[in-house]
């Protein structure tokens, strides 16, 4: 309390800032990890952060086959995500457009969303083979749901007053969609998109881990089978960076398209 103690010290001010605090938590976590990994933890399962960094530079980023695998995974992810956004929005708008169709289909969508898709992963590999197609397909079916669910939910809570007002002025269905419904959807659409990034990545990696001949998942599988944790963790770092990158892209797009509320 500055009233009681007078001026705050610079240290207090720094600790009170959320960004500094966050960095502090991360640094403390890494330190504890480093300490534990060097002393009590089994080096066949856990590598200290310093060794992971070393592996990232000397093995992951220096190895052309691994780099190609990262590229493969990135393209699978990007393609699956793009398809999920397009199809999810289209299906969401169509399902959300009518009272009857939305009441019929929305529970089905929610039910399918709740089913753990891993159970049918072998089917995907059977249908689409060991190559990238099965990964894109599995990423797609993961990524489409958050978009669909958010778009349908958004369509269902468009203000009836706006719809009535637009109708009284003679707006056509397309005009209502363009000027009333779509702008209203923007916030929930982007919320869905950011969830979708994480889900798509999950789908792609799951499919790669299950059965693949390429991609980050293939190498992750390889490293863990051979009790070589440092490059495994390095791959996880790379995946995290991919997710952050896509999430940031979604956030930028959101800032650009969101109308200012207050």
């Amino acid at each position, binding site marked *: 309390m500055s009233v009681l103690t007078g001026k705050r010290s610079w240290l207090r001010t720094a600790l009170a800032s959320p960004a500094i605090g966050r960095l502090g938590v991360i640094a403390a976590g890494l330190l504890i990890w480093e300490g534990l990994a060097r002393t009590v933890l089994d080096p066949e399962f856990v590598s200290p952060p310093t060794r992971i960094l070393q592996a990232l530079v000397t093995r992951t980023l220096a190895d052309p086959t691994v780099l190609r695998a990262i590229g493969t995974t990135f393209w699978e992810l990007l393609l699956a995500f793009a398809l999920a956004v397009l199809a999810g929005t289209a299906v969401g708008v169509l399902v959300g457009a009518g009272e009857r169709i939305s009441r019929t289909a929305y529970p089905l969508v929610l039910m399918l969303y709740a089913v753990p898709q891993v159970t049918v992963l072998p089917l995907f590999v059977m249908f689409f083979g060991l190559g990238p197609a099965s990964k894109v397909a599995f990423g797609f079916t993961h990524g489409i749901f958050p978009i669909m669910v958010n778009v349908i939910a958004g369509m269902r809570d468009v203000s009836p*007053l706006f719809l009535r007002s637009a109708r*009284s*002025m003679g707006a056509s269905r397309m005009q209502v969609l363009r000027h009333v419904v779509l702008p209203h959807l923007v916030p929930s659409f982007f919320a869905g998109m950011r969830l979708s990034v994480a889900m798509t990545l999950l789908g792609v990696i799951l499919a790669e881990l299950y059965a693949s001949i390429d991609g980050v998942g293939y190498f992750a599988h390889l490293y863990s089978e051979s009790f070589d944790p440092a490059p495994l963790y390095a791959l996880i770092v790379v995946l995290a960076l991919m997710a952050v990158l896509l999430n940031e892209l979604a956030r930028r797009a959101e800032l650009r398209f969101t109308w200012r509320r207050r």
Partner: protein
Amino acid sequence: MPTQRTAVSSQLAEVADPWPAHGGEPETAILCVEELRKNALSNSRDASRAGDAAIGIRGVSKSFGDDGDDGRLPALQAIDLEIRRNEFVCLLGPSGCGKSTLLNIIGGLLKPSTGEVFVNGRRVVGPLPRDIAFVFQEDTLLPWYTIAQNMHVALEFQGVPREERPERVRAALEAVGMSEFARYYPHQLSVGMKQRIAMSRGLSLQTDIVLMDEPFAALDEQTRMVLGEDLSGLLEQTHKTIVFVTHSLAEAVFLSDRIFVFTARPARLKSIVTVDEPHPRRPDFMTSDKFNGLRNRLYGLLREEIREAVRQNV
């Protein structure tokens, strides 16, 4: 009152076709209805029924819910009335009596259970954006558009050619003295200013008729008085027929040429009160004996109805 309600619902249940075709032409009726729905307006004129009135309402009843349903709620009962051209009319009644329902039926946003509505001599079967503009109670400005864009979109909805829109938007904003706020977003304006914009948007649509559903209900009394004066002044310039729903007695007297007083639910027309005072009306009208006399008369007419409405809502 449950007994009354059952009686009304059985009476309404007997009506086989709740949306009968235009009377007198049975052989073309079915064809017509389809045709009319497309055009939103009947082309057949029926002078004997509609007269020179801007709006004619013939035996309009409305119930919500399905036939024979216990929850069926009669809102309007056998309403007959006529609204003349360039007239300012208030629909006055206790809250929840069905005034807004009647307004939505006039505007073609709701279908009556029985009866018909004529606008400019033609039967209403859907929204009439060329003839009727709406101003709603809550602000219906789209929050993602600026004030000018909102006006622009309204004109686009109405089908006004693109090249005419900027000038119309400019003129409409100027008429209410809001030009400087053209580039503001709705959330940057006060409730009163937003409602003033909504009002000017309604007037800018260049329809003969403007239907206003308690446009001042969300405003404080002072803002309400100022906007009321503005409206009275705007009317003088625009020559429109206005139907205004309110439950404020003072607002009704101050603005109206005629006041239609309704009973508690289900609404029936109880009385018509004429206010013989030229527009634009000045604030000193509000302190005159004539004003207070009319206001008291309205209160006398409404007293039991308000009590009935309060009882219904317990």
